[in-house]
């Protein structure tokens, strides 16, 4: 030991050896350069390195990893495709990341009972693609559906453009298999029978942002394709007219399958991206409206929508003439967030919810925040259910801009909660909005929720530091970011 100048190769961490024993050498990443790609998810403002990334192949391996971590007091968290926008999969505490991407199979489809069983790493859109030849689909359609996993959707209770009519993820989950933080495997409503008696534990787990358990199997509802479908694109010279049209459509008694809005900056972004449609560059807003259902009623609804738009001074309004055209409109909308990369090096997306009728004033407030901060804000969102997505465009390479963007984001959420809204519609709280939880909950309400977490996750080893503000520990993440930004 002493006297020996020859440096020995550093011994591998015994915990890593144990994880390798569980899943095999190839399924564990533990060297820094390999871990670097896991230092953030779709929310890139915060970055932190995990201890390891493990790739279990089945529920038993997940349970063994969880058991090992929990008995040895090692923090851990679950990760899917890592497309989350609130930082839910970022390892703030040097966690062992349990990546579920190798549990990616469609286990069974029961057309008679309209349900399918999938593993958590199964990609959202693949479900629809696998059953579409039989005329079925899976309704929740987050914009990242090409890549995001259904396990991640459950954790975040993901929404999407068509959730206005069909509801978000929680409305489509019929059963779950979950590994609890102590390693125990439980089944909730195994047969997929709805309305089981007792507390709605499934509802509690859906949207718990990976703080209550690791989902390893999901039974979902599948739907028959609607008989008919039509899509409308409407261009407005004034954003206020566009916003008013949204309320008018809903108050006319129409429930569109989707009712989406983009403002001028958002349109600039999507037109600069990979899927441009050729929207005019001098309009202030566009609406993308889809109606589906029984064929007979659709054209009447479309006619009514066209009338509403005309009543609000629409410049141009058109109905998609082909499936190909409809597809182009949707690709343009669904790749909207990523397309912002074409006009800005970084963005921060917020996820406020407001009562629809307050849309004009809240948008005006958001533009005021943009003017004040000097940062551009693009709005591309689910107008129909009042779910705003202000995208704050910034350049993290410029000193102070990250901090400014965070501040502007908080201000946007404040503007939403001030009109009786909420701070998240579908992206989750994660790291990003945990402080803003105070806008909508009192200390007592937060405490009550933390007590629920403690029932499942008493040692707070699973996805620690997410979802709730952590005042007692003085480890406000945003403060750390501010400090590091200030130092630079």
């Amino acid at each position, binding site marked *: 030991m002493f006297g020996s100048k020859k440096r020995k190769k550093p011994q591998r961490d015994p915990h890593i050896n144990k994880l390798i024993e569980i899943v095999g050498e190839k399924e564990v990443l533990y060297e820094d350069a390999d871990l670097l790609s896991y230092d953030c998810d779709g929310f890139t403002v915060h970055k932190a390195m995990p201890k390891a990334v493990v790739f279990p192949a089945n529920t038993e391996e997940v349970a063994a990893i969880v058991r090992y971590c929990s008995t040895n007091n090692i923090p851990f968290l679950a990760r899917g495709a890592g497309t989350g926008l609130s930082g839910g999969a970022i390892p703030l505490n040097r966690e062992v990341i349990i990546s579920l991407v190798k549990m990616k199979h469609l286990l069974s489809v029961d057309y008679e009972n309209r349900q399918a069983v999938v593993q958590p790493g199964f990609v959202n859109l693949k479900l629809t693609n696998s059953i579409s030849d039989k005329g079925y689909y899976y309704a929740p359609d987050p914009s990242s559906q090409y890549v995001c996993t259904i396990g991640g959707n459950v954790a975040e209770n993901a929404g999407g453009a068509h959730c206005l009519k069909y509801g978000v993820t929680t409305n489509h989950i019929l059963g779950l298999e979950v590994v609890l933080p102590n390693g125990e495997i439980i089944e909730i409503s195994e047969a997929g029978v709805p309305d089981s008696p007792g507390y709605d534990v499934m509802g509690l787990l859906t949207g718990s942002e990976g703080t209550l358990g690791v989902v390893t199997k999901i039974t979902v509802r599948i739907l028959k394709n609607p008989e008919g479908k039509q899509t409308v694109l409407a261009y407005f010279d004034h954003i206020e007219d566009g916003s008013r049209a949204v309320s008018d459509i809903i108050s006319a008694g129409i429930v569109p399958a989707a009712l989406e809005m983009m403002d001028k900056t958002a349109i600039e972004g999507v037109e600069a991206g990979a899927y441009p449609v050729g929207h005019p560059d001098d309009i202030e807003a566009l609406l993308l409206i889809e109606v589906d259902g029984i064929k007979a009623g659709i054209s009447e609804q479309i006619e009514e929508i066209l009338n509403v738009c005309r009543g609000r001074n629409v410049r141009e309004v058109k109905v998609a003439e082909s499936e190909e055209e409809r597809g182009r409109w949707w690709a343009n909308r669904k790749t909207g967030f990523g397309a912002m*990369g074409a006009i800005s090096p970084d963005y921060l997306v917020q996820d406020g919810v407001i009562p629809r009728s307050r849309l004009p004033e809240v948008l005006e407030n958001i533009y005021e925040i943009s003017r004040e901060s000097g940062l551009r804000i693009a709005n591309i969102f689910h107008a129909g259910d009042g779910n705003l997505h202000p995208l704050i465009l910034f350049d*993290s390479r410029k000193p102070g801009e990250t901090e400014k963007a965070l501040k502007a984001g908080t201000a946007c959420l404040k503007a939403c909660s001030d009109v009786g809204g909420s701070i998240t519609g579908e992206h989750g709280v994660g790291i990003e909005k945990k402080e803003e939880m105070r806008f909508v909950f009192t200390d007592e309400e937060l405490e009550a929720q933390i007590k629920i977490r403690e029932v499942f996750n008493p040692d707070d080893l699973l996805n620690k530091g997410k979802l709730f503000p952590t005042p007692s520990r003085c480890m406000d993440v945003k403060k750390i970011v501010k400090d*590091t930004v200030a130092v630079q």
Partner: protein
Amino acid sequence: MLKEMAAPEKTAPCSSAGLSNYFSADHPDEDKWADCVHCGMCLEACPTYLETGQEQHSPRGRVHLIKSVAEGKIQLKEQFADPVFQCLDCRACTTACPADVDVGGLIEEARGQVRQAMPLKGWKGAVSTFFLKGLFPHQERMHTVSGLLKFYQKSGLQKAVRTIGALKVMPDHLASMESIMPELQTPVQKKYKDVDVIPTKGVPKARVSMLTGCIMDVMFGDINQSTIDVLTHNDNEVTIPKKQTCCGALHVHAGDREKGRKLAKQNIEAFENSEKVVVNAAGCGCALKEYPELFKDEPQWKERAEVFAEKVEDISKYLYDTGYEKPRSSLNKKITYHDACHLAHGQGVRHEPRQLLKDIPGVEYTELSNADTCCGSAGIYNITNPEMAEAVLDRKMENVPEDVEMISMGNPGCMLQMAMGVRKYGRKSEIVHTVQLLDWAYQKDEQNAGLEKSIAVAGEEEA
């Protein structure tokens, strides 16, 4: 240990503090990675991510690492080199990317840096030097090889080697490559050595120059011949500029950008007087179109490269854009089409070759699912990364219907790789180049016309 883990990692905003761990010359372009917002929409498009499930082998992961070298977080070492070279360079991510991030360009720049920091050694180095430096850029040596290969085939040596199992001493993947070696024809470079302009039968409507390619001309001389015949059939005179050389795609993919630049300059000069440069190998075409990327530090050459790149066109797109005669004779085959990555993702050519096929009477066209997913050939990737290449090929073959008689495509690398796939899975499908099918249909037209003519003549005589 546990104490250390309990302390939260200090989080930092992503910012790049210069290009710290890169060599200053020809470093990856910061503006390219600034476009990436880490949304992850590229993940499911990436064959190596689908295979490994690991983010460092995904496009956004690679971009993240490339950025991390600039930020000084990692070094130009093995663990950076591995993900960067594991990339197939298939460009599927550029199609999937909402922000048009040039991942392919970044990867190639990063490879250039890696090769500066850690030159290739061992058998990979030897293979690379042999093919990339010693062989492809030298036409006369390629012709010699062609001659030797032909001798190998004709002399019965090939048969002997296959029978006695000498192949067993070769590494598996090289042996399986040998087994699908096509029957060789005379390279057109050699055949038209003394011809300046290959004439049309009728009045010429245009004159085009052809890039013969190195592998294409040696391994698939017949496809080059078909290309010439189809072009002249459609009233295009063809020239084969003598000074042309290897396109350099493989060099640039392998990180040897210096050699890539040399070859690029030679080609730019060779085709200076050409109005149109027609290419039948997707990989070459894509590389030629990307020459400007190589000359960031040489503005004059960059300008010339841009002029040159504008002239380059894939054969299928050229025919589609300028018009072609629809054949009248039927081929009566069930055919599917595989998108070469560098045609679909690299050049955006998808519709044109399909239309060519559909215009041939008797073709029963079947669309391949995931037609634009890489087959694993990827230049010499199947030689340098055989395991991954094979896994990617397996995935590809799963999508090929058992009953297709022909699989058509527009790239020689894909043709060799798909031929291996067909052989491995015991399929009967023939691997063909799109332009060959058109050529065969025209040939049939001519035979039929000849037959009709002789019948007509006979008829007249009888009368």
